[in-house]
């Protein structure tokens, strides 16, 4: 036991073993982190609960906004008045923060129906309908302003209210969570 290893300039077999052991431990440790991180992601039940929902549009009066939930997220369905549609269309698209024509935000021939996510794109509050400078939405939390097309027109929100996937099953019925198949 009196003999201890003496330092040699050349890498030895022992140096190789140190590195190999260290590498195996590091890779093993990193691999073990994976399941723990993944457990934080939306679980299978939550994903399964994201099945499409059907909404009957018939009771929604002109000018009314209804709130529905899909995958736990709030969605606005707005029955726009002709004035609101006109206001949304008569905008210089190039002047917008997140340029998008109104026609690209509604289904063709269904300009009266606007379907958007109901959480402000800034920090997730629920904007108040028919309020703000453009009578679209106004977010009470940090002052973001949206127009009648759900496009951001002021305040800290970086992008427009996003459009969820949805399709018209008939003139008075939409299925939220399902892309149009036509």
């Amino acid at each position, binding site marked *: 036991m009196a003999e201890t290893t003496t330092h040699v300039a050349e890498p030895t077999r022992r140096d190789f073993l140190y590195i190999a052991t260290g590498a195996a431990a590091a890779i093993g440790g990193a691999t073990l982190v994976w399941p723990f991180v993944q457990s*934080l*992601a939306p679980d299978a039940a939550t994903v399964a609960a994201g099945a499409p929902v059907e909404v009957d549009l018939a009771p929604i009066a002109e000018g009314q906004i209804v709130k529905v939930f899909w995958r736990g997220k709030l969605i606005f369905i707005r029955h726009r008045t002709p004035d609101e549609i006109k206001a949304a269309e008569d905008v210089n698209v190039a002047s917008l923060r997140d340029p998008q024509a109104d026609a690209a935000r509604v289904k063709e021939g269904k300009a009266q129906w606007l379907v958007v996510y*109901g959480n402000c794109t800034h920090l997730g509050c629920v904007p108040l309908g028919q309020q703000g400078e453009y009578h679209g939405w106004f977010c009470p939390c940090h002052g973001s302003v949206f127009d009648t097309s759900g496009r951001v027109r002021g305040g800290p929100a970086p992008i427009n209210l996003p459009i969820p996937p949805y399709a018209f099953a008939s003139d008075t019925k939409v299925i939220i969570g399902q892309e149009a198949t036509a």
Partner: protein
Amino acid sequence: MSQHPTTYVPKSAFGRWFESRLPIAGLVHSSFVAFPVPRNLTYFWTFGAILSFMLVAQIVTGVFLAMYYTPNAGMAFQSVEHIMRDVNYGWLIRYLHANGASMFFIAVYLHIFRNFYYGSYKAPREVLYILGVIIFILMMATAFMGYVLPWGQMSFWGATVITNLFSAIPLVGETIVSYLWGGYSVGNPTLNRFFSLHYLLPFMIAGVVALHIWALHVPGQNNPTGIPIKSGKDAVPFTPYATIKDIFAVVVFLIFFAYWVFYMPNYLGHADNYIPANPAVTPSHIVPEWYFLPFYAILRAIPDKLGGVIAMGAAIVIWVFMPWLDTSKVRSTAYRPLYKQFFWVFVGVCLVLGWLGSRPAEGWYVIASQICTVYYFAHFLIVLPVLGFVERPLPLPNSILESVMGVQKGGAGMPAGANAEPQSKG
């Protein structure tokens, strides 16, 4: 602690037997009995003890609350009402815990600004100071997650707004947020994990506090003059001097604490949090707890999502660099006539930011927040570095003793032994 050789001598045979196996009594003796404390410390140096007490108080009240609380989105709100109405003294335990968080932050802000005023963050206490910043960040995370647990309107929307801060990160932001939530919005998985972490973090704070105290006992405490202990005459032993003073300060602080708990237990909260969480409606005016308001004002001052989040984070992270941003060789602001004025302006700006954070984000409030935010950062990035070069500090006393007793000329007019080393007193 190893810097200060213990004078502890066990008196009993069992004491000697135990000490040779686990020298913990000697450690306590050298750290909290014989430890030399500057003789000129003011009550501003009692907040360490007050904070240690508050940490223990929060853990004890929290452990009891956890016995009655249900971390489930469908039951959390009801279980808190159950604690308030049915559990024996549940109202008291909950009010102690909820107001205790505010008291904790009052004490920590006084502790932090005492450190800013007397230059405690400067060499050789940088590591001690940075550990303190880490404790503060852990405290903020713990307080935020605790506020979510009652699952009222402010809980829910506070959680939504704060977790959405991470969505500002380019490319991976949305993924990170869904991993924080465990879903596509704040919901039951979010509440579960916040409860788990809210229980864990105080023990992590306790761990960092142990390091903080360890790091304190290497250079010893700073003091109102900012000059180090040069001889035994500058110091008194921790026990009884600091021990009694700390206990007295804790008692006075507890009277203040009790006033809030018994006379206005809901003053520092929001009425909206007595409305169960509703994911379809945001409260008309959403504000965080008072202790986050200055940072919240900075977040809202920047009219850009990512920029606002970065500014808010930077407002705390910039503290870490203070020991190097401050170029002045003089620690205590008492000897820095120019900096003293800037210091109080900075305190004022922080208070105004706090008030602005409680106002709605509109009109001149936004402009005022922007001006204050610019000044906040200018204090660190311009005032601290430049002043060290242009300011002429006042002459420092030769010793702590001299600052207390005046310059000694033979000791006339002073009680016998007043300037003697404490161990030779009495």
